């Protein structure tokens, strides 16, 4: 077959959930040896399109063809049998099984009647090595970090000799460095003639690795052309339908000299050692470091989600924080990086999720449903949450809209010090800008903010000062003119910072 035959193609695909139609006549062709990027705003229908390709959803109308032959997948197994493998935006791992058991789930290697554990272990180690991922193959998936989960998903997909590999926001939780490792694999697969499709809200990386870009808006394909004809800016415009100005707003407000939070020698066993820093009122502090550097665990220790030692002072007063409740009663709130298993109750409604963190405020003593609805109205407006139906379950929102709901939920708690871990994970570029503005607005009102992000540009653009962690310790700090990607990477990789001063 010539390369003119699409490995997988969609034609005239419609899809509805109940009365709401979310896809309208979607047509996409994936060719062997081509990397195809699917971009669009949150809720545009990217994940739904991909799930139809992967046999996880069936179309209401339209045709799916594999190698030119129309097919009807009744399950993802049937799609896999044809070599179509999908990595989900929200992970699809068995949390209670180990890494290696997940990699081989449903495809276990056997030796006679028994499982060939040794071969599976070796292959898992080899796969993870190829991905430069140091997670223990025997670790339970529920205990590993979100980026590691992403790597396990990728390893799992690499194992299945894919003819078509579909990846839904594979880099959302990865830092640039880990993303590079993934792209090497993408290049390898492309040269082997695999057809690849991926989505990402990081348009620079779309520009870098894709051969063709398809843009979706409100369930329609609005544009599809070779990547060489587009720039990151023109992609953003095509997605949002308007021109985007500066992504990071200018900081105007003054930072007060009052210390809002002082952390000394915070140690979280197994993850962080002797972390000390200060945070001033109205300051935005960035926290950077490679995956596994203990950023998240340090902050989880700080808010009492993990056992920890060390002293914490809030507004000059020594406090003992043993639970998120303690922390919240002091105005300190943490937004988790893991929205699916720690952030939202997926089978509850939007309203219930929004107010869960601040429920006592709505209980007088009976829950004031009207006030809750008003809070939801406000959240939908402030954070541009696109829900086809107000009474839907949170789990049915698109990934980015779930993230917006999570941000809204944390902000509803009216924190005075807020730690946001990957605040814009999976959020489209237009809304990102809104969230950045919101964060600056908070800071201007005197709220202190700690931003953890694997997107270097995000930390640099948002934060006044950046602490870099490495192997559970503070490796250094950069601010002002030194706030460059290069300086941060050097610190994160332990190359020593030439001109940077180190914190006490």
């Amino acid at each position, binding site marked *: 077959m010539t390369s003119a035959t699409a490995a997988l193609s969609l034609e005239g695909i419609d899809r509805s959930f109940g009365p709401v*139609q979310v896809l309208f006549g979607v047509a996409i062709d994936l060719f062997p040896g081509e990397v195809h990027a699917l971009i669009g705003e949150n809720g545009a229908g990217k994940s739904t399109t991909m799930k139809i390709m992967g046999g996880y959803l069936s179309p209401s109308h339209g045709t799916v063809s594999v190698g030119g032959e129309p097919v009807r997948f009744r399950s*993802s197994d049937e799609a896999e049998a044809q070599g179509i493998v999908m990595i989900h935006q929200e992970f699809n791992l068995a949390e209670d099984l180990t890494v290696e058991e997940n990699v081989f789930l449903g495809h276990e290697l056997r030796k006679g009647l028994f499982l060939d554990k040794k071969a599976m272990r070796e292959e898992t180690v080899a796969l993870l090595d190829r991905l430069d991922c140091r997670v223990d193959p025997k670790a339970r998936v529920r205990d590993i970090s979100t980026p590691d989960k992403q790597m396990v998903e990728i390893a799992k997909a690499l194992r299945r000799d894919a003819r078509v590999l579909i990846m839904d926001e594979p880099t959302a939780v990865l830092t640039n460095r880990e993303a590079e490792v993934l792209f090497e694999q993408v290049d390898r697969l492309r040269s082997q003639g695999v057809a690849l499709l991926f989505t990402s809200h990081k348009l620079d990386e779309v520009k870098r690795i894709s051969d063709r870009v398809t843009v979706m808006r409100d369930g329609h394909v609005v544009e599809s052309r070779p990547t060489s004809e587009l720039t990151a800016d023109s992609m953003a415009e095509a997605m949002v339908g308007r021109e985007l100005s500066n992504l990071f707003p200018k900081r105007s407000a003054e930072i007060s000299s009052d210390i809002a939070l002082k952390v000394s020698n915070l140690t979280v066993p197994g993850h962080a050692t002797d972390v000390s820093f200060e945070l001033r009122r109205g300051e935005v502090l960035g926290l950077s470091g490679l995956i596994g550097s203990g950023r998240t665990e340090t902050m989880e220790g700080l808010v009492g989600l993990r056992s920890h030692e060390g002293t914490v002072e809030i507004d000059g007063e020594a406090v003992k924080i043993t639970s*998120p*409740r303690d922390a919240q009663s002091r105005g300190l709130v943490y937004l988790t990086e893991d929205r699916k*298993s720690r*952030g939202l*109750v997926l089978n509850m409604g939007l309203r*219930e999720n929004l107010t869960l*963190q601040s429920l006592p405020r709505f209980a007088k003593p009976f829950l004031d449903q009207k006030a809750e609805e008003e809070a939801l109205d406000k959240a939908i407006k402030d954070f541009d949450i696109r829900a086809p139906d107000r009474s839907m379950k949170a789990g049915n929102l698109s990934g980015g809209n779930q993230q917006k709901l999570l941000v809204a939920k944390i902000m509803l708690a009216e924190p005075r010090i807020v730690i946001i871990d990957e605040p814009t994970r999976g959020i489209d570029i237009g809304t990102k800008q809104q969230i950045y503005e919101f964060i600056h607005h908070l800071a201007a009102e005197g709220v202190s903010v700690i931003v953890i992000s694997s997107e270097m540009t995000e930390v640099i653009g948002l934060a006044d000062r950046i602490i870099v962690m490495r192997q559970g310790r503070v490796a250094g700090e950069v601010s002002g003119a030194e706030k460059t990607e290069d300086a941060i990477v050097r610190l994160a990789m332990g190359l020593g910072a030439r001109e940077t001063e180190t914190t006490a």
Partner: protein
Amino acid sequence: MSTAETTSAPTQAPRKINIQVLGPIIALVVLVIVGALMNSNFLSYANVTNVLARSAFIGIIAVGMTFVITAGGLDLSVGSMAAFIAGLMILVMNYLLPSMGNGVPIILVGMLAALVAGLAAGFLNGFLITNMRIEAFIVTLGTMGIYRSLVTWLADGGTLSLDFGLRQTYRPVYYEGILGISWPIIIFALVAIAGEIVMRKTAFGRYCAAIGSNDQVARYSSVDVGRVRILTYILLGVLVGVATIMYVPRLGSASSSTGVLWELEAIAAVIIGGTMLKGGFGRVWGTVVGVLILSLIGNILNLTDFVSPYLNGAIQGVIIILAVILQRGRKAEG
């Protein structure tokens, strides 16, 4: 290994009227009609009061069980707990009789003892489950055996009987009421209404559902997960105490066969009512409907000779399984 979800046509009925909400109610209505057609006595005042009063014990307990199950827990010990509390209550009152004499005060002391014992027993279950982190199934299987054996031991293998005089004083609590409605029915109704309000209108009810769905999310959302969990067991324990208070005057005795299988009936009522066994969603009104369905089946079989009353358990079993199949329908759709 996920199956492609088949298309739900846009012509689907509006979601407000769905089978999961209406299912239990329809079943109840059908049972009432069947009962009325089969026996003219079925809707008589005497029969209706009888059915309701007898379902009150299980009903009061099942309301508490709804909270426990919604929060992702389970309590197998309630039947033996009721027997134990009944025995304890009888012993306390008999013991105090010489010093306090017969009258309302001694009955009130007995009632207080039942409530305190229920609270303590519930706390114990909850403490072991949340603080010692033992599976609810294991803990309550253990305490179920403990209470059953304690009551047998207290009764020395026989029956503990309330003093005859005291029985006369206490009797009205089961047999009388106001406006022709007996006390157990009134208390059941009050407990059910209060339970429904707590479940739907308070932070506690919302927390139960959130914890049952995903306790990690609840923890990250500043919910005191352990405290809410313990409270569900305490609430259930106290309600077992209340049920026992209504039960003792009926027979005036307790033995090792008191309250046998109550736990299963209570759990069955909760499930039939549409609460999810794995937690995360509960409705108290559904539980009330579930209790009524279970008692009506027994009652109809007793009143008619169409099907042998010995098949009561089988029919109840079929209904429970049907209820769970319906629940699964809801999950797949969500």
